[in-house]
Structure formats: C-alpha cells, structure tokens
C-alpha cells in the first residue's frame, strides 16, 4: 500500500491518450521543456496498430494553448503541422427560429472566447440590459463578433506565441495532431510507445497479492509484449472504455433523455479555391432534428450533421446535410458519402476507480455543441498530472476529489448544452418541442432560468470553483438568443459611468482591430516564412 506510484500505463492513442501522456510527462519528468536526467515516472502508451482514431474532435478551447505550452510544443510548429487555424468562438445560426420564419434572413449569434470587457473585475451585463434594443450584447462588450465576421485572426505576427489580442483556441486536423503529440512525447519527453493489441485486463489476484487493494488492475495482457504492469492505468480506449467501463464495470449514465442527439454524419469538404477565407469560429447551424457543424481548417472544411435518431432517420439527415453543402459544392454535393458515427450521449458515474482513470470518450461523450470533448480531456489529464497520488494508499483520496469535480463538470456541460435548446423558439418539429418539455430539463437549470429572468447570470450562480463555462458564456448564449432579463431599476450612477466608458472603449477597440488584424489565411501564410517569437 505504501508503494510509490512510479509506473503509468495509458491504454489507447488518439488525442486523449497523447495529450494525457504529454501533460503527465511534462509535469513530472521535465523542467521548462527539458527532460530530467532521471525521470520520476515511467510512462508507457499502448496503442492498437490498426484501430483507427475517430478523428472528429477538431475544435478546441483556449485552454489548448496552455496545454500545448505546458507540453512544450512550439506554436508555429503546431499550427503548420496540424493544419490548424485560430478559433475565436462558436457562431450559432438559425437556433432561435428557423430561417424560413425570419423576415430578415438568418438569425445568428456568437459565443466568443473573450470575456466581456471589464470582466472579471467588473460585471458589465446588468448595464447593457437597458440598451438591448440598440446594440447586441456581444457587440457591446466584445470585439470578436466583428472580427470573426471578417475572418480575421486573433493576433498579429508580432504577437508572441500563445499570447493573444483576442482570446482563441484552435481548429485542427485531429489525426495530424495525434501524430505531432506522439512524436513530441516519444522524442522529447521519453514516453514509451508500444504498438500492440491489448487482449485482456487482469485484476489483482487477492490470494497472492495481499498488499494491493481488491479490484485493482494488476496488468494488461498484450499480444506481442506479454504482461504490462503499472501502478496507475489510464483508460483512453475511446467509447469501448475497456478498463473503466468493461473491466471495472463503472455504470454508464445515459443523458439521452436530456440531450437527444445520438447520431452524426461527418464529411470533409475542399475549399472552392485556395484563397477562400478561413472562418474564425465554428459554425453551428440548427436543423429540424439536430444541427450541422462547420469547421474551417486552412486546407479543408470539416462538416457534420448531428441529430436524434428518435426524431429523424439517416436518409433525411443526409438530405439536410447535402442541402447545407449544395451552395458551396453545387452538383458535386450528390457525390459525397459521409461517415456515420453513433454517439451514446452520457458519461460514466466516476472517471477514477481504484487504480484506473478514464480520460476522453472512455469517460463519456456528448454532442460537440460547445466542443467540450478536448477541453474535458485537458482538464482530466491536468488534474491527474497535478494531483498525482504519491502512493497507492493516498490514491483513493485524490480519486474522490477528481470524481467530484468530474461529476460537476458533466452536470454543467449537460445543463449548458441543454440551455441552447431550451431557450430556442423553433417550432418546426417535435424535436424542438421535446427539448422544451419540462421533464427533459434538469431541475437546477429550470431554477436558474427563473432567476435569470430577473438578473443576469453571475459568478454567484456557480458554487464550485474551476467551472468549465464561466457566467459570461451563459450571458452570451442567453442574450444571443434574445432571452429577456428584467433590467434592474436602480443602478449606481458611478458604475453606470464606468460601464459607459467600457462600452466606448470596446467600440474603439473593435474598429481599430478590424483595421489592424490580418485575416486568418494571411497570418497562417506568414507563419510559413516567420514564426511567432517566444516573447
């Protein structure tokens, strides 16, 4: 029981496995990107040679910048090798009402990555409410709506790597991202890479190993490499959840009754010409029974229709996807054959049991409406890396903590995604009506919505620290969707004045930046010649 935790085995490659390997190795075995002469941990990643990675997950949050920096990857290298571009948020199109019910064309709004101006010191939303007829919330408090409509970058070539003028994450090619991470982890961080099939997972034999808790994983069995032992096993095996779900039988909690989408059709589409603008945000366009994602990489777009199989069928979903593609692809849209993906929306009850943590799809998966998948991978991997239990007998204490936060994160993700549907006024199918049925809405979300009728979401609405979505995210979605919050009658004049200054400053910044910033494509072209500097 006092045995030190020194050997870690990660089962499964893909972005989840390699991000986890990179973060743990960087935290424990390296200092400032330099590998320690006597690494503390022995980290091995086992990957099946012929299991294809899912390779969707192509949008990240701004957290990916700190993750990459921590792992020690140069930003320019990352951008060029992973066909990555800059993502400044998500644009939601046709979510409020269906396009054919809008007299003035499509309704759309942006959920940007930058916080409202003045935040977190000054909560500006209450001061915008009285002006909502004149200016949208996002334009009043943030520059990214204008910037992204012009397909501009969040920074300039002279901005240091991983720094920003406007906050950003990435759009990337998931396959190439895994390769870069793998190469970096094996070349620079001494992570061992075993290409082999895991044939069995073997629990501790209680009769011979009395000092190890019952139910722990003793080793995994592989085809070529025999038994591989570890003190801590990390399950990155994807939806199969080989270790946590299958072997340790941690129950799966379905969320299909809240978030119905369980199917997706994904496709990659070339640009009509090499100089087409690269979108600065993920586009999410609501459909009658789901929504379509549209992610712009420098080399292609990744597009997919995610929908509820209980409300529609694959054929109809395909037709809608083709209708979406047709303006760009023309007649060629008929030739496409998208890949079908099945999603079981939900998550395991806990992510850490005994000496096994699941990270990524092995822990849970939900529709990518707010691109939370990689963010949750990063969060879990960072939690394991920074709180790595020193010994087996301290592991359960840490596991309890991490599980608690894991559950809170999942609850928030589910409620936040659900919010997008609940406040929609679409009425073009049962799908949208069902989404607003009270029995499909978590109680805590209903309570909060009642509160937000009278006051803007604030940090006080979230009692635990380190939440994934800040209050600002709720503000951007609610007010993007024309949600009504009663303006407060009495606002302090001094604070009103402060807010007015911030509105003016924001306006000036927005027009200055629209002149100053290069387009995504122009900046990425520049990076082929000159890199971002470190300072």
């Amino acid at each position, binding site marked *: 029981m006092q045995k030190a935790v020194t050997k870690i085995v990660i089962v499964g490659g893909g972005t989840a496995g390699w991000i986890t390997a990179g973060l743990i190795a960087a935290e424990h075995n390296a200092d400032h990107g330099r590998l320690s002469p006597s690494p503390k941990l022995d980290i091995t990643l086992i990957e099946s040679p012929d299991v294809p990675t899912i390779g969707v997950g192509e949008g990240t949050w701004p957290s990916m910048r700190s993750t990459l920096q921590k792992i020690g990857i140069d930003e320019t290298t990352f951008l060029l090798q992973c066909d990555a571009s800059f993502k400044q948020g998500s644009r939601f199109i046709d979510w409020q009402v269906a396009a054919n019910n809008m007299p003035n064309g499509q309704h759309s709004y942006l959920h940007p990555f930058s916080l409202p101006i003045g935040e977190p010191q000054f909560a500006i939303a209450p001061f915008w409410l009285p002006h909502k007829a004149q200016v949208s919330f996002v334009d009043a408090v943030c520059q990214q709506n204008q910037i992204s409509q012009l397909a501009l970058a969040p920074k300039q*070539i*002279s901005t240091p790597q991983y720094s920003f003028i406007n906050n950003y994450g990435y759009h990337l090619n998931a396959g190439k991202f895994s390769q870069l991470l793998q190469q970096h982890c094996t070349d620079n961080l001494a992570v061992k890479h075993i290409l082999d099939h895991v044939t069995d997972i073997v629990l501790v034999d209680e009769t011979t190993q009395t000092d190890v808790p019952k139910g722990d994983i003793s080793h995994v069995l592989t085809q070529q490499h025999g038994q591989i032992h570890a003190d801590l096993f990390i399950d990155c095996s994807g939806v199969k959840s080989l270790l946590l779900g299958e072997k340790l039988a941690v129950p799966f909690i379905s969320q299909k009754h809240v978030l119905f989408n369980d199917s997706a059709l994904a496709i990659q589409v070339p640009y009509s010409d090499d100089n087409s603008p690269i979108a600065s945000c993920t586009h999410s366009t609501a459909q009658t029974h789901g929504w379509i994602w549209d992610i712009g990489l420098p080399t292609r777009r990744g597009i997919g229709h995610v929908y509820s199989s209980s409300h529609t069928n694959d054929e109809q979903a395909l037709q809608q996807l083709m209708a979406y593609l047709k303006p760009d692809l023309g007649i060629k849209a008929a030739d496409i054959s998208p890949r079908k993906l099945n999603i079981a929306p939900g998550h395991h009850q806990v992510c850490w049991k005994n000496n096994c943590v699941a990270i990524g799809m092995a822990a849970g998966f939900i529709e990518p409406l707010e691109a939370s998948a990689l963010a949750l991978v990063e969060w879990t991997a960072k939690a394991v890396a920074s709180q790595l239990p020193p010994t087996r007998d301290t592991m359960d204490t840490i596991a309890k903590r991490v599980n608690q936060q894991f559950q809170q994160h999942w609850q928030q993700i589910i409620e936040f995604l659900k919010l997008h549907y609940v406040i929609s006024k679409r009425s073009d199918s049962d799908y949208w009506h069902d989404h607003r049925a009270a029995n499909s809405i978590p109680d805590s979300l209903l309570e909060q919505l009642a509160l937000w009728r009278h006051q803007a979401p604030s940090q006080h609405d979230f009692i635990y620290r380190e939440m994934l979505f800040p209050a600002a995210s709720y503000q951007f979605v609610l007010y993007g969707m024309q949600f009504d919050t009663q303006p407060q009658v009495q606002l302090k004049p001094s604070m009103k004045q402060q807010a007015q200054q911030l509105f003016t400053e924001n306006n000036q910044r927005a027009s200055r930046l629209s002149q100053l910033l290069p387009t995504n494509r122009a900046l990425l072209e*520049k990076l082929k010649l*000159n890199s971002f*500097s*470190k300072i």
Partner: protein
Amino acid sequence: MTQHVLLNSVEHKDLKVITDRSAKYGDNLWYTVTFPLEFRSVQAHYPIFFHKDTATGQFYAVALFGFKNEDNLFLTDKGWDASYVPLTLRRQPFLIGKQMVREDGIEQEQHVIHIDLDHPRVNKNHGEAVFHAFGGNTDYLDEVGDMLAAIHQGLNDSQAFIDVLLEHELLESFTLDIELDNGEKHQMIGFYTINEEKLNMLDGTVLTKLHQQGYLQAIYMSMASQSNVRDLLDRKNAQHKKR
C-alpha cells in the same frame, strides 16, 4: 510615393542629393534600425533597444531618437545635433538592390545601388553630385557604396546576433514610463531590452562563444546605451521650456 530604380551614370548623371538633416527630407523619425557593427558609435548618443517588425514579427535593434512617432529630439533648425547619424538613416535616398548576373555561366546574385527618385533629397540643383560631369563616381557615391555594403553586412550579422539572444532568452519586453518636468507622461510599449538576470546566469561556455562572436560586447554596449534615455529626457524638457 517611392520610385526605386537602378542607379546608372547615363540617366542619372545630373542628379544631386541633399545631405542636410531636416524633417522635410524625411528625418523626423523617432527611431531607426541599427546593428551591432555600429553599436559603438550609436551607443555614444542614443539608447539602443529591440523592436519587432510588424510585418514579419522578427526582432531588430533600434536607435531611439524620441519618445513618440514624429518626435526626433536630435533634429534642430541647424541640422542634426549629434556627431554620429546611424547608417540606415544616412543612406537615404539610396538602397541596396539585388541583381542576378551570369558569370562564367553561373547565376550569381550581385548587389547594386538603387535610388528612390521620388525622395525629397533628390534633385538637380542642390547638394552632392552623384556622378562627375564626364562620368565616373564622385567620392560621395563611393561613400554611399561603402555605407550600403556596411548596412548589408551589418543587418546579416544582426540577424545572427538576434538569433543568439533569443536562443539564450536574453531579450525581455519592458515598458518605459517617462515623466517630464511639466508633468506630461509618456508610456512606451513594444520595446525589448537585454534580460540582465538571464545574462548573469549564463555559463562560461556560452559566454566564451558570445565573446568570440563579438556579441558580448554588443550586449553590454546596448545595456550601457540605456543611460542615453536621460539625455533624451533632458532634450525633451528643454524643448518644452523653449515653447
């Protein structure tokens, strides 16, 4: 507007170049690019800092003449008030051009002198002649040729110098806060200087290498040049008193 052409003694035989220093000739700059090979002369008068090219994001060294755009504290009614004017400023209106020539059947790059015919210094009546009446370079043009060669060599060397500074993380950004006697405040951002803490921590082998390359001297000269900020400040205060 600029009109860069290859200088030649036929078309340009009558050209003259005004060498006086004045705002009307484009001298009202608050900094100009410099490089280690002229640091010794530059540091005697101007603070040397580092700055990023907005077009490429790459660093270069600059000699500072003032605290804001179009504020050159060395430019007076009587000309330039310092004995040394940095080469990248003095070269105007000439610049280096590249030309591909075939020599013994091999393509080679050759450096040639270009001139900006639209530059306000260029005329036919005043200043230094470029060519003699019956052809042949004037001493002035020879001097210009030497200057351009020095700049070319200096900028190449500067690139190597900057790479070394970045490799050893010897640059750090800083904000210069200036307060004038009349209470006016200026804040200069976007400049970088030598990170002395990192410099002091360099080990012997790295220091030896820097010394051999001549960069250790350049590093210390740029650090010493910072005391010229005081001189700039005095000039600025004096300027205000005169008004």
